[in-house]
């Protein structure tokens, strides 16, 4: 009888498990992703739509299965979708344009903001500001490390 109960319980649980992966990821990383989206696209309705797109996308499951790193997948897919939406919003956006003047001192934080928050490709930053790509990577590392110390 216990086994019968176990099997029916298992079936019920099985039926309810369809969305466990995505929703579990959403529960853990939803706030991080939403915050990231709002930084890129500061419109709540659109940001929520992007958030739903991210966590219901097949890309997320595929990426997670491939790499096993949920956070890296979520950051990557969230940024892709948010920057995609931003480009549609801003029709006159030129690819890889940064909003930092060349006179500004390129601190690790500025380079981090350019690449991570503004989505400027590393190669573009390197050519635009005359910095070697390894130096940009080191600056990003330095910024993450400085944040760790705070």
């Amino acid at each position, binding site marked *: 009888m216990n*086994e*019968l109960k*176990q*099997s*029916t319980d*298992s*079936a019920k649980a*099985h*039926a309810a*498990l*369809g*969305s*466990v*992966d*995505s*929703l579990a990821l*959403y529960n853990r990383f*939803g*706030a*991080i992703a*939403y*915050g*990231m989206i*709002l*930084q890129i696209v500061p419109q709540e309705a659109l940001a*929520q739509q992007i*958030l*739903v797109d991210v*966590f*219901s996308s097949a890309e997320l499951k595929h990426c997670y*299965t*491939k*790499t*096993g*790193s949920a*956070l*890296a997948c979520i*950051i*990557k897919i969230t*940024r*892709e979708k948010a920057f995609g939406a931003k480009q549609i919003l801003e029709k006159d956006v030129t690819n890889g344009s940064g909003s930092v003047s060349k006179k500004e001192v390129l601190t690790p934080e500025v380079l981090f903001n350019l*690449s*991570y928050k503004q989505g400027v*490709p*590393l190669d573009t930053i390197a050519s635009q500001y005359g910095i070697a790509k*390894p130096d*940009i*990577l*080191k*600056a*990003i*590392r*330095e910024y*993450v490390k400085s*944040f*760790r110390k705070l």
Partner: protein
Amino acid sequence: MNTREYINSGILEAYLLGVISEEEEREVQEMAFAYPEIKESLLHLEEEIEVLCLESAVPPPARTWTEIQARISPTEIQKHQPYKDPFSEQGARTQEPPKPEYLEVEFNDTHLRVHKLWRPAFIAVFILGKIFLACFLYY
């Protein structure tokens, strides 16, 4: 470049932040697969990046959870798989689907899924019943 130099180059942070090209991403994944030290650094960095990201985290409205749930297709229903380490050799191998522990019986309001050992048990009870009935009638 040795592993220590590779770790210190900043490529791992850039990988986790999603700011490098797909080719570079593949390279990082291959390096992590080949060198446990790099894999360990990645796992450690992931925790740090999560803390950094939490600084700008904003709780989303409750209805997005419902929307995501509604969007996930019922055809995707599958048993939850345990965490697979992508950088270990075992994780890289294709996982065979586990053998079912239960006989699949159509599951709706009038059917149940039962353990497969119940089948021989029912057959044995049926045969014994017939034997006892025959014995009872004979004697």
